[in-house]
């Protein structure tokens, strides 16, 4: 086959993969630190997407300018949700926490269907495209990819360098020891969930620029987060990045050679194989379950 076409397909996969990494980073953080599978994550992304779209159509606020305020709003909502509800059951088995977040997801999903019509909407920025020989890349996707990478990097920086980030990592590694060192675990949980929601918020605003926003996508987005998390390894930003790029490129290649439905199947197949063969993920280390 044609080399330029292969380059095009792989580059498309990388553009997609960066978005997947950003989608999964917040989900992975919450799962890794709180040990909670946050079934709300997909709906939070779509909620942020709707907010960005509404700000654009109502007040012509540029989605990239709306990104941080929307993210902060979701941060507050996420922190409140954790403090009010999830913190109370955070130590219970996965069946309880997963079912609780699923129940909350149903409420949010229903509320979004009632508040916004289910008709897909998106923000169209006419940015043109970048042509490199035979390879063509739309600028809006390139911008979205770069911002997704920057935001994922920002999360990494926060976890590596800030006081809050070090506390979050300490709680992830050993909750009891962290608590003995004077870290208030419940507060870290709340801020971590808020940070996860913040990542969902900024991702949603980014997605509004490149994909149609509809409540039908919530399950798909959540599914991508599952796959990226398992493929890349849990609770780490580099893991989310590796998993996201791996999934993006796999889907792009699969979609090109086998068709779009096979691509989705391939993602889940990859995940099941890795779950069994290497449950710690591509970059995962043993130690944190």
């Amino acid at each position, binding site marked *: 086959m044609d080399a330029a076409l292969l380059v095009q397909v792989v580059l498309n996969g990388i553009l997609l993969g960066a978005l997947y990494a950003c989608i999964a980073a917040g989900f992975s953080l919450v*799962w890794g630190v709180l*040990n909670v*599978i946050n079934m709300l994550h997909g709906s939070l992304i779509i909620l942020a997407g709707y907010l960005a779209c509404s700000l654009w159509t109502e007040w012509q606020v540029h989605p990239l300018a709306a990104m941080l305020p929307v993210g902060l709003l979701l941060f507050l909502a996420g922190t409140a949700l954790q403090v009010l*509800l999830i913190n*109370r*059951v955070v130590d219970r*088995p*996965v*069946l*309880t926490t*997963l*079912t*609780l977040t*699923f*129940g*909350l*997801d*149903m*409420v949010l*999903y*229903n*509320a979004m269907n*009632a508040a916004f019509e289910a008709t897909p909407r998106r923000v169209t920025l006419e940015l043109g495209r970048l042509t490199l020989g035979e390879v063509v890349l739309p600028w809006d996707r390139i911008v979205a990819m770069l911002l997704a990478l920057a935001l994922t990097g920002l999360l990494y920086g926060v976890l590596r360098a800030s006081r809050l980030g070090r506390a979050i990592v300490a709680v992830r590694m050993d909750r009891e020891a962290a608590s003995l060192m004077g870290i208030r675990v419940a507060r870290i949980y709340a801020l971590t969930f808020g940070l996860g929601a913040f990542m969902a918020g900024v991702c949603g605003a980014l997605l509004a620029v490149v994909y149609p926003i509809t409540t039908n996508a919530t*399950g798909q987005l959540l*599914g991508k987060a*599952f796959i990226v998390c*398992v493929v890349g390894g849990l609770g780490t930003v580099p893991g989310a990045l590796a998993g996201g790029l791996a999934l993006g490129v796999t889907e792009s290649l699969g979609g090109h050679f086998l*068709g779009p*439905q*096979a691509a*989705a*199947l391939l993602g*889940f*197949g990859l*995940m*099941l194989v890795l*779950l*069994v063969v290497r*449950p710690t993920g591509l970059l995962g280390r043993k130690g944190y*379950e």
Partner: protein
Amino acid sequence: MSPSNATALLVWILALAATPLLGDNYVVKIATFVAFYAALALSWNFIGGMAGYPSFATAAFVGLGSYAGALVQNAGAPLAVGWLAGALASGLAAVALGAVVLRLRGHYFAIGSIALVEVLSLTASWWSGLTGGGEGLNVAFLPGGPDTIARVFLYVMLAIAILALGTTVVVMRGRLGFALRCISQNEDAAEMVGIPTTRCKIIAFVLSAIPCGAAGAAYASWVAYIAPADAFSILLTVKVPVMVMLGGAGTLIGPVLGATALVLLEETVWARFLDLHQAILGGVIVALIFFLPGGLVGLARRGRST
């Protein structure tokens, strides 16, 4: 089984069986749904309640059973053969898939079991030569009037529920039930004292799949049409564990109670608020987790002991 449990279950069975005499086809339809969900809840109880494995694979087995049943039926086999084929397909799939996903624990098992539903659903959409793809598959209608059809499916679903109930009684009294409870409490310790944990978990997974397959196949011939999104529904896969938690996980009567309560609640209360259906169910789930952690059975026990 305590005498009061036995009486309650007998009353439940007789009440469902008597609905064709007492009410119209709408009442019979509700009774059929009660029996359908009770069968699913009882089967989930083997892996989720007794062994404590957070399985979200119910819809995988229901969907697989409904496709297997529909295909066998469309190939010209009699109805009952189709339903048996559904049970068989799900049971065999549970052996194969269980050997893979039951190696996982906790969160990974939960995610793996949800992934099974997704993989089967995507396969059904993709393999359109066999399954009709996203357009779905038509299943031949049962001959006879609406009254006959309503009754046939009520008794079929009730029979599946009774079989699941009987299996539960046998398992709970026997060594398998003891082994599963040990696994639920501490799997490593159970293994240490010589319980063949892998074999027990796979048996529990298969037991949790067979009634789902049969009920799924019967459901497919009842509604005469199946499509990937309905057959492999994520909503169903969460609703069934919620029913068991509502009733009381790991008990005999809990799944029956939870399934009955949720179906009746669904029909009487929020069938009137179609736009808010999901939100209300979500609210019920949240309330259940905060206010009723031991389920209705736990509530009754707490009431008795104080």
